[in-house]
């Protein structure tokens, strides 16, 4: 113990300085490690794909000879399946969220039970949605389970909880005063939701929905369970047609013995990444562009 307050403080300060520097160092190192892995992965994948960044990646169907094979069916399949997924999941998800957030009586136990279960559903492993869909398709009498409708259904079930949760979050962020103001003017609950709350929440809803869609885009597990790992050499045509998607196609190529298929897979991975990054960039753009105005 020293009575020289100034000196004591100074040494204490430098001690805590060293500690916080160390701590900061650890944090930076962790970030560095995580980031390096990502960079290495990206760079090696990119290098592996060299030789197949060509137009035929987009224009050719899959083929047993690697140099003639392309991801056309997979790209169009992804777009088609994910579009149907969006059509199924977005309206139902947003409507459910509106009901739960704006109309449901939160003091009732069943509404709280629904809320809790949706949160749990968001954490359920993706493959389970594949199994559920398998069951639904059997009940509906589908012999062949690898159909566009089945894939879209599985992915829609998968992202539905995410859409509901992010939409509720966005609705909850709209200040209560806006609803009060609208209702006090003689607007109905429905008008208030439709003309005030929902428009004010659109940026948040759009962001969450796009992120959910990009999740559906990159998902393979539930589709594999439906038997989507098949050789497709035609464009997707109809809800009950067979299909493949990019993650499935990539999975198929990486497990093929020929080295050229691995190159093709790497190129397709980079393409899929580019699509996902674009989607996420759009989501970030929307979020920033329409940042809260209240």
């Amino acid at each position: 113990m020293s009575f020289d307050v100034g000196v004591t403080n100074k040494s204490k300060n430098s001690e805590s300085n060293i500690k916080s520097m160390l701590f900061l160092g650890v944090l930076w190192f962790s970030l560095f490690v995580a980031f390096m892995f990502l960079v290495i992965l990206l760079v090696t994948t990119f290098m592996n794909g060299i030789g197949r960044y060509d137009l035929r990646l987009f224009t050719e169907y899959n083929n047993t000879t690697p140099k003639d094979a392309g991801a056309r069916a997979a790209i169009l399949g992804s777009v088609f399946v994910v579009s149907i997924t969006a059509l199924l999941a977005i309206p139902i998800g947003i409507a459910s969220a509106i009901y739960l957030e704006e109309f449901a009586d939160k003091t009732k136990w069943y509404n709280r039970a629904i809320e809790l279960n949706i949160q749990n559903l968001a954490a359920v492993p993706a493959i389970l949605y594949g199994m559920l869909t398998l069951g639904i398709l059997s009940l509906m009498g589908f012999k062949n389970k690898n159909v566009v409708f089945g894939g879209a259904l599985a992915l829609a079930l998968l992202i539905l909880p995410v859409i509901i949760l992010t939409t509720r979050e966005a609705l909850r962020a709209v200040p209560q005063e806006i609803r009060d103001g609208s209702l006090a003017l003689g607007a109905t609950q429905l008008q208030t939701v439709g003309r005030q709350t929902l428009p004010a929440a659109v940026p948040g809803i759009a962001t969450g929905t796009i992120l959910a869609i990009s999740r559906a885009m990159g998902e393979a597990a539930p589709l594999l369970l439906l038997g989507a790992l098949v050789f497709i050499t035609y464009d997707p045509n109809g809800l009950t047609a067979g299909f493949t998607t990019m993650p499935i196609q990539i999975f198929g190529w990486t497990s093929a013995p020929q080295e050229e298929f691995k190159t093709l897979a790497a190129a397709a991975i980079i393409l899929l990444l580019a699509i996902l990054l674009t989607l996420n960039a759009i989501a970030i753009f929307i979020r920033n562009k329409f940042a809260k105005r209240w």
Partner: protein
Amino acid sequence: MTESSIGARQMTVKHSDRVATFNPIMEISNLDVYYGDFHAVRDITLDVGRNQITAFIGPSGCGKSTVLRCLNRTNDLVPGARVDGRIDYRGHDLYGPSVDAIEVRRRIGMVFQKPNPFPKSIFDNIAYGPRVTGMKMNKSETEDLVEYALTRAGLWGEVKDKLDQSGFALSGGQQQRLCIARAIAVEPDILLMDEPCASLDPIATALIEDLMIELVSDYTVVIVTHNMQQAARVSDRTAFFSAKVDDRGQRYGHLVEVDLTTKIFTNPTDTRTEDYISGRFG
């Protein structure tokens, strides 16, 4: 300077005129309000005079906002809230079975403590009420109504060149006048104001006070305020609320007295009112 003193003199003339004729537009009898099991406000009996400004004053938590919200049935929207007793509005039971709460809110407008413009343009803020309440109007009629409402709220001069800008681009005082204009646009009968000047500076407050006095020739105004001078300056009648603790230890709000503002502020009947007004009670 001269202008405002003339305004003040006119105000006092008007003031005494208004006080002379008491004509109830709303009669509250034995009103009780519950939030779930909580019996928040008990046995309020009070009349609101037509074309008068009635002020609700009293310590925090004594139920002023609660009673105010009952007057246009916005308390219906609070989950678990329940009302007992009777409120008559122009001779009709406000809580009667055939009464549409939406219609009530259209006729009895409300301005909140915190200015709450919609995240829309100034024009759309005003036009919103008429649109949702189904007033059939073409473009030029809407424009006229927007101009009228903004003029009545004393805001037209300040915003006429930027009607397409966001309501958030205005200052707090302007936002509050925008909210008043928004309420006026649906041509209400009564305007309820819950501490409308609480977040405003003295100049903006004076503007809103002048505006209330301006409006009361056509409307009836009920205002909740924590500002004694404000109640004394603008209101014709004042209701003093206070909180009590019942034998089960529950705190509840009740009405101590209601009378002409001049009487309440110079010669109140109840000593509790006197204590509160003179700042001895809080």
